[in-house]
């Protein structure tokens, strides 16, 4: 009997199942992981989600107006709201075959890239925080704050903007937007180097993240991973280049990929460093877009009075900071979409967690969850 054996030897060798979450600080929201443990080793990991389910799709299908869905898309991935809106309005513009003015396109690209930097700063900062590095978190948030202030001036909100409209923008672009953004680009570049010195190449940080949570390329593709998670495994894949939307084909930028520099290809550190390097590329895009953006033009003139697509369906995908965000929209000529499905990158990445966490130590689970950078608002919708 096992009890007798424990009494005799003083060792309990049975498996143990524990819950990590739903209120665990490193799960970035309400996520519950059922971990089956052998000592400290994770034998199995079963994610449980749904705590933040807010019926996004049901709402979108019953709202009687396509445009009224836009503020709700903000609330899916609430730390990169601009990118969520961008994907949705592009899907509708393709369904309606609407032309978008140049000035609007440039503005959208600039805010989308600013948002990408803000989102990566949050992802990187909290990733460090999870692993015990408190200072980089404060550095990241100082910079993120500057982006949010630019957004506040332009949209009136700091997190959930409701800024993009089908065929245009909800508000005119403020006069000092260009100078503010140029100033930010100038001051932010040296900060990336500072962040690298402080966190990326820190010995303790590397020890916690290298060789941990390895995601091989084939597994990543079979799970349809995207964004920094896929690129961290060494696949050069970015929808801004591979399936271009908006005006991304006009800009010159590179796709950073993981190379296994300090550990194994596809480990936590690779996924992390891809995000850091992407911020530099985003700065390059912003600079080019600021140069190219026309100074004159009405951002609201292209907005249709009534949105009634003809019968048909479309799947469009855009590159958000977390990966491929897809909107599958079916129109039946009605006032509200017949079906809206949001394919959230975090949802897909979280489903991969059991595959990459097998055999990890329980302390490394924190690093793995942090490195796939999930936002539970988007997972549960």
């Amino acid at each position: 009997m096992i009890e007798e054996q424990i009494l005799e030897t003083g060792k309990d060798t049975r498996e143990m199942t524990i819950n990590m979450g739903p209120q665990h600080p490193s799960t970035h929201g309400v996520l519950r992981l059922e971990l089956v443990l052998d000592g400290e080793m994770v034998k199995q990991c079963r994610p449980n989600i749904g705590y933040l389910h807010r019926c996004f799709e049901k709402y979108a299908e019953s709202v009687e107006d396509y445009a009224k869905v836009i503020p709700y898309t903000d609330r899916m991935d609430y730390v990169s709201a601009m990118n969520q809106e961008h994907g949705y309005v592009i899907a509708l513009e393709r369904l309606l075959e609407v032309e978008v003015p140049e000035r609007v396109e440039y503005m959208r690209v600039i805010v989308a890239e600013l948002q990408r930097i803000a989102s990566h700063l949050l992802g990187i900062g909290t990733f460090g925080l999870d692993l015990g590095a408190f200072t980089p978190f404060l550095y990241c948030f100082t910079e993120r704050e500057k982006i949010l202030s630019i957004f506040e001036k332009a949209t009136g909100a700091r997190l959930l903007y409701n800024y993009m409209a089908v065929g245009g923008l909800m508000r005119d672009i403020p006069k000092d937007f260009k100078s503010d953004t140029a100033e930010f680009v100038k001051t932010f570049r040296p900060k990336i180097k500072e962040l690298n010195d402080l966190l990326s190449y820190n010995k303790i940080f590397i020890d916690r993240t290298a060789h941990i949570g390895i995601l091989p390329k084939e597994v990543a593709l079979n799970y349809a991973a995207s964004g920094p998670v896929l690129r961290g495994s060494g696949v050069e894949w970015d929808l801004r280049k591979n399936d271009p939307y908006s005006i991304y084909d006009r800009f010159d930028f590179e796709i950073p990929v993981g190379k296994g520099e300090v550990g194994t290809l596809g480990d936590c550190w690779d996924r992390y460093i891809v995000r850091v390097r992407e911020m530099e590329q985003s700065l390059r895009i912003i600079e080019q877009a600021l140069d190219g953006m026309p100074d004159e033009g009405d951002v609201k003139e292209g907005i249709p009075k009534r949105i009634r697509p003809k019968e048909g369906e479309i799947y469009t995908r855009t590159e958000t900071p977390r990966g491929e965000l897809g909107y599958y929209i079916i129109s039946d000529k009605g006032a509200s979409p017949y079906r809206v499905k949001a394919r959230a990158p975090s949802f897909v990445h979280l489903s991969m967690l059991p595959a990459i966490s097998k055999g990890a130590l329980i302390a490394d689970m924190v690093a793995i969850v942090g490195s796939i950078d999930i936002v539970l608002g988007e997972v549960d919708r």
Partner: protein
Amino acid sequence: MKEQEEIFDYLKEQFGEDTVEFMKGDVGRPWFQFPAVRIKEIAKFLRDTAELRFNTLMCLSGVHYAKEEELGVTYHVHSTTLGHSMAFKVRVPIDQPNVPSVESIWKTADWHEREAMDMVGVMFDDHPNLKRILTPEDWEGYPLRKDYEPQEFYQGMPTTA
């Protein structure tokens, strides 16, 4: 890279004219329709054939077609090596909503299929763990059906304010 028409001709040749349907709305992208019973075999073919190589399943969505009293599943696949994508559907009657699972072909289908089951009630045969995912396990009904009425009480708690 293949255009949609080329893919259609290719599949017609492979599976016969009765199996493959090619459809298009007034706007948007076209899609293919296959019989549900053969979906696993077709999915495997789409993934493994050298000319097609659809190695990623981007999205899998369940749809309730209220007028026809049918449930549908839409698959969006893409080939990262050849650069083409396509959409295909299966439709099943609402009183017998069984569709073979493609989880063994594209692992990402695991959670997508659970979501489609949870939200519209498509039953995926041979799925390793077909449980509700977004709603609690003992929730009643399928929220994304057009005729859905929320249950009044959930474990003694009123569901409406």
